[in-house]
């Protein structure tokens, strides 16, 4: 059951990204996807296995798959959508809106991980979770802007 919920989240986030009317060029999206994935993977391994700040439920394959789906697809696509909307508009209301959506959605899916016993907090708390989300969002925007500039300089438009 738990893996179905996380499959749904992954599907939803991928569909939101695919359905956007204004998108960054594909090369920028691919580079950003990889750069986000590297950071998220390191964050997960270091906080769970090195610092023991939370425990990943590894007793069942469905819980483990849920964690992988969450980390490699759901969060990555939420952040991709964030970068695509943020960097293709100049309206501050849209920028604020997508920033709040990205933050709250990550808080929500993070809480779902805890409710469904995929993750159990040990030293991790809400403040650390919020700070981590803000840091990763800032990283996404900075790298997105850099890749966007590189692409526009080289003429990659789609």
């Amino acid at each position, binding site marked *: 059951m738990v893996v179905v919920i996380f499959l749904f989240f992954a599907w939803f986030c991928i569909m939101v990204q695919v359905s956007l009317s204004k998108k960054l*060029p*594909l*090369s920028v999206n*691919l*580079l950003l*996807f*990889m*750069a986000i*994935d*590297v950071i998220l*993977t*390191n964050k*997960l*391994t*270091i906080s769970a*296995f*090195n610092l023991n700040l939370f425990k*990943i439920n*590894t*007793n069942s*394959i469905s819980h*483990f798959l849920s964690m*992988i789906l969450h980390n*490699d697809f759901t969060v990555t696509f939420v952040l991709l959508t964030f970068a695509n909307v943020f960097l293709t508009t100049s309206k501050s209301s849209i920028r604020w809106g997508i920033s709040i959506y990205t933050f709250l959605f990550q808080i929500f899916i993070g809480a779902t991980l805890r409710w469904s016993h995929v993750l159990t907090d040990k030293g991790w708390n809400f403040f650390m979770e919020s700070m981590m989300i803000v840091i990763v969002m800032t990283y996404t925007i900075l790298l997105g802007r850099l*890749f966007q500039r*590189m*692409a526009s*300089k*080289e*003429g*990659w*438009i*789609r």
Partner: protein
Amino acid sequence: MKNIIYDNQFNGNEWFVIGVGVIGFASIWLFPKRYSPLQTTFNILIGVAFGHVFDHTLKIPPLELYDLGDQSKYQLMDFYSYMMYAPFGYWFIYLYEQMRMFKIKTIVYILFWAAVAVGLEWLGVQVGVYHYKHGYKLIYSFPIYLFLMSIHILLYRLAFAQDRRQINSNRPVFNKK
């Protein structure tokens, strides 16, 4: 996750990672530049990203199929070991285009590179970069390399197809479709 310590010294496995990384990046720097900064970043980053995703899925519980470096715990040197994959992505695409290994020749080309990757992984096992666990065998990596290299070519050709580029852009970008 039970932490297994394989060794505590700065020895063969660290030198292997540093050596492969330095030779790989130096060769990119020394050879004529054929790609734009965005293309170069793509080809370099893809190996690092694939390495992270697969290693951090296969080496952690419940699978725990292998360990990297001196111990099961993730260390700074393990992070650096992903940089070792970076130049391979670059050379993989460089030679693919330079030798015009398009259409059916792509299959032979990917098979060749997957064999090279397995050979390098074998060397890595010998010097202690990889420690297989729970029955994992070197040959299991072969289909993973085939799959990842195919994805690499596919994504590269998709992202850097000429029709994605502004016609009047004057910067030379090499991509033979």
